[in-house]
């Protein structure tokens, strides 16, 4: 690549401990601007905790997190609100307000964070709904639409304020394979058309390989490997191979050894 790629997020030596338990253990990672970065790993690998740090919900025990050149670690709530304007978040369960119409859900961040008139907000809502393929659904209530459509409404809401970065927490969770692939296509479209940086946390392998420009594999709170889809697919790391092939036996122990069991039992 001729141009030097700018990193919109840089995580430096991030450590997070909950009591004695180290959940993130010296994470270093970069998220290139305008690209789709997928953070993946098995349950309990630390990927959700990592995401919560990136959006400022957790403070690390040690380390720094730079978002668009600003270190968000130790920021005041007011400072953090300024940074939060730069990103949108698609929650796992869509998290729409059931008492509000689709249009009002998308309009919510515009009403909360800007002084725009309602006429202008209504036009923006229409444009955002078109971007997610839901033109004409403004007056529908969330209970009147499918799970996949709810996700798309949530995505329209996430991009309402024209964020630089969108975080996706398990975007395909609870969706059938066809709907999940439609959401993947939408993530690709938004990235390519709007040049939005996407950070996707998932353990869905098909989805990860479909969308990722860069993959980051976490295991036991550490970065195991960073690479393109091809590099991860061809990784010689036995943990990664076991994970992407979904094999029950391998380097990742399904259960603790009897030795660890006895040690844990007798020493507790």
């Amino acid at each position, binding site marked *: 690549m001729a141009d030097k790629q700018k990193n919109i997020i840089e995580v430096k030596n991030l450590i997070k401990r909950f009591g004695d338990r180290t959940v993130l253990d010296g994470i270093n990672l970069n998220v290139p601007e305008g690209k789709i970065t997928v953070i993946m790993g098995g349950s309990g690998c630390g990927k959700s905790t990592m995401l919560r740090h990136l959006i400022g919900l957790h403070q690390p025990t040690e380390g720094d997190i730079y978002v668009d050149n600003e270190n968000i670690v130790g920021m005041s709530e007011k400072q953090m609100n300024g940074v939060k304007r730069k990103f949108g978040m698609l929650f796992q369960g869509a998290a729409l307000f059931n008492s509000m119409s689709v249009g009002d859900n998308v309009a919510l961040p515009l009403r909360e964070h*800007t*002084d*725009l008139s309602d*006429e*202008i907000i209504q*036009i*923006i809502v229409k444009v*955002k709904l078109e971007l997610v393929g839901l033109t004409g659904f403004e007056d529908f209530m969330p209970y009147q639409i499918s799970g996949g459509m709810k996700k798309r409404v949530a995505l329209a809401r996430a991009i309402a304020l*024209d964020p630089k970065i969108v975080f996706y927490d398990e975007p395909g969770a609870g969706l059938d394979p066809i709907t999940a692939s439609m959401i993947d296509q939408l993530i690709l479209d938004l990235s390519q*058309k709007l040049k939005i940086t996407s950070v996707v946390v998932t353990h869905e392998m098909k989805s990860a390989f479909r969308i990722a420009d860069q993959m980051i594999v976490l295991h036991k709170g550490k970065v195991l490997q960073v690479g393109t889809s091809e590099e991860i697919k061809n990784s010689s790391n036995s943990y990664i191979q076991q994970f992407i092939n979904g094999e029950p036996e391998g380097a990742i122990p399904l259960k603790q050894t009897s030795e660890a069991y006895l040690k844990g039992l007798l020493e507790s």
Partner: protein
Amino acid sequence: MKIQQKQKDDIQVFELDGELDFHTSPDLREKISAEVSKQNHKVVVNLKNVSYIDSSGLATFVEALQKAKRASGKFILAELAPAVKSVFEIAKLDKVFSLAGTEEDACRLAKA
């Protein structure tokens, strides 16, 4: 953002300089709305010095176009930088607006 307004024959020309975003678009809306709402008025907006436009800027122009059409007027945008034009294309609005390469072309379109 700087907004300059001038009259060219019977056309109101707005020259914008800066970024058109959530902070600056309400001011532009106020200035443009007054002109496009008048019957048969011709309005040209020159975007030569606009480097960035967000959804609120786009929506401001959509509303201006709606008002101009209702008032049987003309509303033309001129000299869009590629990054600005792509915002219209993404929202599939590039075919809805009259987009002119130069201010002179925009004025010709307004008079047509």
